[in-house]
């Protein structure tokens, strides 16, 4: 089965990539975009036996840097 880990920068952490994307969108003429934050999507194909606790452990130990990033785990059928 698949699990998705979404890694995003914590609120308040400067996101230069998000700012650059925002700037580019404005350059293309898209109005009304208030802010852009860039993150990462990590897709895991795991055995049924791997529970959310194990994935959370993976996030804390490697996939996210919890000094600056948040993570969210989503199960995908």
């Amino acid at each position, binding site marked *: 089965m698949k699990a998705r880990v979404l890694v995003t920068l914590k609120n308040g*952490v*400067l996101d*230069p*990539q998000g700012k650059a994307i925002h700037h580019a969108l404005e350059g293309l003429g898209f109005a009304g975009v208030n802010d852009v934050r860039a993150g990462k999507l990590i897709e895991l194909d795991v055995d049924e036996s791997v529970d959310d606790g194990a994935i959370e452990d993976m996030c804390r*130990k*490697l*996939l996210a*840097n919890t*000094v*600056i990033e948040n993570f969210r785990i989503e199960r995908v059928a």
Partner: protein
Amino acid sequence: MKSAVLVFPGSNCDRDLQVALERITGVAPTMVWHRETGLPEGLDLIAVPGGFSYGDYLRSGAMAARSPVMQSVVEAAAKGTPVLGICNGFQVLTEAGLLPGALMRNAGLSFVCRSVPLTVANNQTIFTRGYEAGEAITIPVAHHDGNFQADAETLARIEGEGRVAFRYADRVNGSANDIAGIVNDAGNVLGMMPHPERAAEPAHGNEDGRRLFESLLGALQTA
């Protein structure tokens, strides 16, 4: 001085550091492969080199920080062995939890590769005692992720404890408080983005980095 240089796949400054350490200390460092589970006995310095370990995949320094050898580095650091992380090495040390904060993408989004003016913010460390307090020096940088950030409480603590070793004199990459290098609370671990090993002999055209290695050597001799 007995030193070791860690070798990760993708790093490209390990040999520069090896040459600098050998020429300045007179003893060739041991090159230690990242899959090793131990370090040589009696090390006076563990050096974590710059470069792009694991291609900077996931986050700069993230994979290297979880490599087998780093467990030994964390244990040695806790016992007081000096650890020097340069550029990617600084990123590895923050990812390994040996130093606070994180190195993020440069604020200008550009790779910065040039010599930059620094000030020596604290010359009372084993790494900086060869410099004058507040001295202006020039050291090359070459990085994409040198933007040091930490939460306000952490920043206040490291500033209050005098743990900022080097500060950029110009805005180089957006680092909080223009921090270019910090030490841990015990003072035996230094992480810095600039490359002192690239400013260590006359052929480099700049020897401002040499005194960092000489400071360590001097600290050992007077210890």
